[in-house]
């Protein structure tokens, strides 16, 4: 058992750190949930891609570095420690790409992945529907078989990034038999479609701070060619779920985000941020909360190292990813609440305010953290999964 990095890993870290130091914008980009910010972040993806930092874990021939999970974790640690911008392309890279690697055709990979890596095409996810939040199997949007492809109809919602993105992916019901037989997971098909296609209407939805972080999609007889079906028609649920448990459980939120945030919080507490009033070191109530954030971020980092080691040793993680989800989402909120409390009267300010602290984007980070316990399966659902699958408690109506 060890926590040691190889010389190659150390070199990789050093290279990433040096590149980031040279390239990360000095001033924070505008929020990626705005039109200007989205464009700026797309440009940043191009910069990353130019030096092969946008998709480090992908094969070299499509812009990656063949990085191991551990190297990816190292990159993420350095990335967030450097204060680099949020990743506007993460829906594609974290959710769609693993599915294409496992279930896509060579043609699909060759067509989709390079433009994803470069930021030329930004992807939105289109999982939820108005009546199907946590209960994803009850989807109602349809894909109707037509000559050479499918026609999509229905409504998707909470489609993150869709206000400004280029394309989207999601599940559509191509066969009602499963639904009628009480097996709603059957008869779904995994499809990709352009957001500017005929019949697609995108209605941006303002997040709680007003920024259009997601959108409703209205689909009215939208044609999608067969080449944009991933996996077999009717097998969409299996296709979507097969990559949900393993590495995706790790990559949903990388530990580097939290170790970097905990470091910024510690600096804020130590008044290294020029904005804050000096903290009284004896103010143990805030000290304890800062310490808990540091401990939590470290625990999440170590837990991830252990899982990465397990995967590297041929193991896999399944329901364990629910532990991850609950832990980081609770940690993220607590960490940001602590920051706002440290800021006293300035904690109320939006990041756009002239007086807002120079470092941290604490208001945006707090807003973002509030979504954590809701998206990607609410924490209530995750706790049910933990209790039933990891502890073996009896299933019950909830």
């Amino acid at each position, binding site marked *: 058992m060890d926590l040691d990095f190889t010389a190659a890993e150390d070199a990789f870290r050093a290279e990433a750190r040096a590149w980031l130091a040279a390239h990360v914008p000095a001033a924070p980009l505008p929020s990626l949930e705005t039109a200007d910010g989205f464009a700026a972040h797309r440009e940043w993806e191009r910069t990353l891609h130019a030096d092969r930092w946008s998709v480090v874990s992908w094969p070299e021939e499509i812009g990656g570095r063949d990085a191991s999970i551990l190297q990816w974790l190292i990159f993420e640690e350095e990335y967030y420690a450097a204060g680099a911008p949020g990743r506007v392309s993460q829906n594609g890279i974290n959710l769609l790409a693993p599915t294409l690697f496992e279930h896509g055709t060579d043609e699909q990979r060759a067509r989709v992945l390079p433009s994803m890596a470069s930021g030329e095409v930004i992807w939105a996810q289109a999982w*939820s529907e108005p*009546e199907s*939040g*946590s*209960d994803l199997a009850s989807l109602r949007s349809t894909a109707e078989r037509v000559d050479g492809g499918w026609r999509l109809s229905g409504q998707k*919602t*909470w489609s993150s990034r869709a206000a400004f993105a280029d394309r989207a992916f999601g599940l559509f019901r191509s066969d009602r038999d499963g639904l009628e037989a009480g097996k709603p997971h059957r008869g779904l098909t995994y499809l990709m479609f352009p957001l500017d296609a005929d019949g697609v209407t995108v209605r941006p*939805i*303002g*997040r*709680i*701070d*007003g920024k259009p972080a*997601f959108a409703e999609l209205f689909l009215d007889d939208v044609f999608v060619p067969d080449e944009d079906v991933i996996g077999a028609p009717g097998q969409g649920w299996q296709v979507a779920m097969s990559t949900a448990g393993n590495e995706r459980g790790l990559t949903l939120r990388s530990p580097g985000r939290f170790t970097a945030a905990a470091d910024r919080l510690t600096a804020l507490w130590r008044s290294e941020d020029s904005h804050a009033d000096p903290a009284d070191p004896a*103010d143990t*109530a*805030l000290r304890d909360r800062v310490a808990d954030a540091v401990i939590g971020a470290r625990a999440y980092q170590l837990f991830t190292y252990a899982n990465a080691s397990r995967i590297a040793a041929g193991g896999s993680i399944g329901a364990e990813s629910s532990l991850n989800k609950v832990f980081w989402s609770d940690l993220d909120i607590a960490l940001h609440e602590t920051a706002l*409390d440290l800021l*006293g*009267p300035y*904690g*109320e*300010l*939006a990041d*756009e*305010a*002239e*007086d*807002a602290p120079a470092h941290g984007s604490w*208001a945006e980070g*707090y*807003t973002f953290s*509030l*979504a954590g*316990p*809701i*998206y990607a399966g*609410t*924490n*209530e659902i995750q*706790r049910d999964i933990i209790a039933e699958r990891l502890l073996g408690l009896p299933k019950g*109506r*909830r």
Partner: protein
Amino acid sequence: MRFLLDDEQREFARSLDKMLGGAEPTAAIRAWAAGDTGPGRALWARLAEAGVFALAVPEEHEGLGLLPVELAVSFGELGRHAVPGPLVETVAAAALLARLGGPVAAARLPGIASGRTAASLCLLSPGSPYALDGDAADAVFVVDGDTLRLAESTGPVQPSSDPARRLSRPVGGTVLRQGPEVVAAAAHAAEVAALAVAAQALGVGRALLAQTVEYVGGRKQFGVAIGSFQAVKHRLADTLIALEFAEPLVHAAALALAPGDPGSRSGFGSGRAVAAAKVAACEAAYAAARSALQLHGALGYTEELDLSLWIRKARALRTAWGTPAECRARVLAR
């Protein structure tokens, strides 16, 4: 002892509730956040007509005397309907001027009571550098140590995470009064402000709980209403408990601020009583906001659902006019 609102107080609450419910306050809030204070000021006039601001103005200045219980009752309803504007600051300014008396009080208080004057108030060090809605207020009062000023103007609006709260720094201005009486009056005004915030937070929390109870009773997942899930039930039960036990603290704080101060009998003078009410009510409201957001799912995370108006207010009230830490310290002060 009859530690219950009387029929008249209940009826006052009901009539405010009814008036506000019919006045489309959410449209006024969204307009206020966008810089259009017209609908908000129209609402302000109706509140004045109902006597809300007169509750903080002595009878000799065309008010109804400081009536803290009625003030708490009305701020509960203002919170329930998330009414925008420098409501707390206006009654706190009234309390400050009333305590100081003299020509300044005579000049300003009748306008506050009648609703002509929306005031803001900024207590610097310790306090906040900002005046709430200073750009929209007719008068911005500033206390710095033992000096009371009327600000000349306010700096640029500093966006709050609750856009209906427009913060700015007061600039310059003329000295209205100077001396130890200003310090004492400002301390009194801060207690009135904290009481008003506590009552407002309680109303905000009640509204958040009510909206969430309604939502989870209708929203179905996995074939049943999510309100039948025990995790949902218990979270809302805890929300109710926190609000129910904050309410008597708010009422007791109001009594402690009433002339004659009966609250001090059990060792809870107005400073401690107000601080206890503020922290309990604001923490309860913030917890209600967190529960409302979580149990509404992604819908609760949107700005277009009116719920967001209350969620954002709950967060901001938590630190306004006394952070939780400051309040807890005050509860234990001798």
